[in-house]
């Protein structure tokens, strides 16, 4: 399942890059225009759906991006996570915050000056700070009897890099809807391989795996604050 996900993700990236590279090289005139830009603030709606599938966790993610140049956007995600799980094997509690910072590159060449659709690929570095504990766990044995233990509260950090691919569409003036796919690779893998790894790393995903695949569906609003120069090709 995981290998198939990577293949699809890689194929998507390849298709998008190839499609961009195959643009016609007509003899067309290039001009520079100043277009409005600013800070786009959004929320990830999928985080509100997660508790229906994983009732033990609560998440919130705010997405930010700001256009820097013609096709480059600085981007950041701010995440909060709370976990409270209990079953017959163990109980687990954690809370923490995460931030990922990087850039998105718009793969679309704009045909109309104020067209604000984007198909983008992105790269981010992520960091999170969180506290977790295992107040009780049980190792069951019919023969010897159950072993009962606990792990006290500990504070850890997570570091990862993230590749993303997504789209954003302006549905109303300055209001955007978008979805994106994310593949996150944990840099401090020793955390995932420790005897008691975290269930969830805020902003990353499942903390006992070195790789996390994720999807975001965002609604965001653009606050126009400044202008950037945009290259336009006139036919």
């Amino acid at each position, binding site marked *: 399942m995981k290998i198939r996900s990577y293949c699809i993700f890689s194929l*998507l990236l390849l298709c998008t890059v190839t499609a961009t590279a195959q643009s016609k090289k007509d003899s067309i005139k290039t001009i520079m225009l100043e277009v409005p830009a600013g800070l786009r603030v959004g929320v990830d709606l999928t985080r509100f759906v997660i508790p229906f599938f994983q*009732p033990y966790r609560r998440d919130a993610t705010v997405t930010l991006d700001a256009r820097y140049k013609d096709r480059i956007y600085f981007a950041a995600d701010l995440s909060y996570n709370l976990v409270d799980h209990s079953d017959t*094997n*163990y109980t687990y509690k954690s809370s923490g915050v995460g931030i990922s910072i990087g850039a998105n590159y718009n793969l679309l060449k704009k045909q109309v000056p104020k067209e604000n659709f984007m198909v983008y690929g992105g790269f981010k570095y992520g960091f999170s700070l969180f506290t977790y504990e295992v107040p009780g766990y049980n190792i069951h044995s019919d023969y010897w009897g159950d072993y009962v*233990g606990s792990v006290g509260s500990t504070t850890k950090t997570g570091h990862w890099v993230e590749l993303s691919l997504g789209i954003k569409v302006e549905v109303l003036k300055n209001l955007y809807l978008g979805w994106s796919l994310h593949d996150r690779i944990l840099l401090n893998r020793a955390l995932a391989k420790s005897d008691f790894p975290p269930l969830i790393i805020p902003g990353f995903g499942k903390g006992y795996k070195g790789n996390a695949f994720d999807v975001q569906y965002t609604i965001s609003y653009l606050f126009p604050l400044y202008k950037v120069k945009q290259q336009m090709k006139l036919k």
Partner: protein
Amino acid sequence: MKYVMLIAVLVAVLTACDDDTKVCDLDTRTEARARFRYLNPNNNNVEKDTAFPKLTLFALGKDSIYAKRPGLTGMQFQLDRLTDSARYYFQTDSAKIADTLTFRYARQPKFISAGCGVVMYFNIDTVFSTTHVVKSVEITSKQVTEENENTIILHF
């Protein structure tokens, strides 16, 4: 292209949303395993696997793990999760004198998955046996995990 995107989104949604705490698809048993080897003096001292007619095994003071079980060429059994050593009564045949197997080890609880929870890993320090029937004990793997590798060979 759009179908590829759609499939990718569906895969991502399913991967991101599945509840790992509900599924345990691993073998959570962490048991020591022993093989029986017999050195045949009538055949150029070639050693080969051997089986016993009525094998009995139990931890001292506990119930039987094997009770006069015929035809076994090896055995698997739990180590004590509550202390750092375990002793076993081991008899190959009801007519033979029993041996006592002693294991000394360090225990390490290990979280293996959200669905399976915590299991106990053991790191074997020493294993020894009385030598009524058993000639010697060889440790083949010091780690006892859910990988279920062979832990010792009992030579006869």
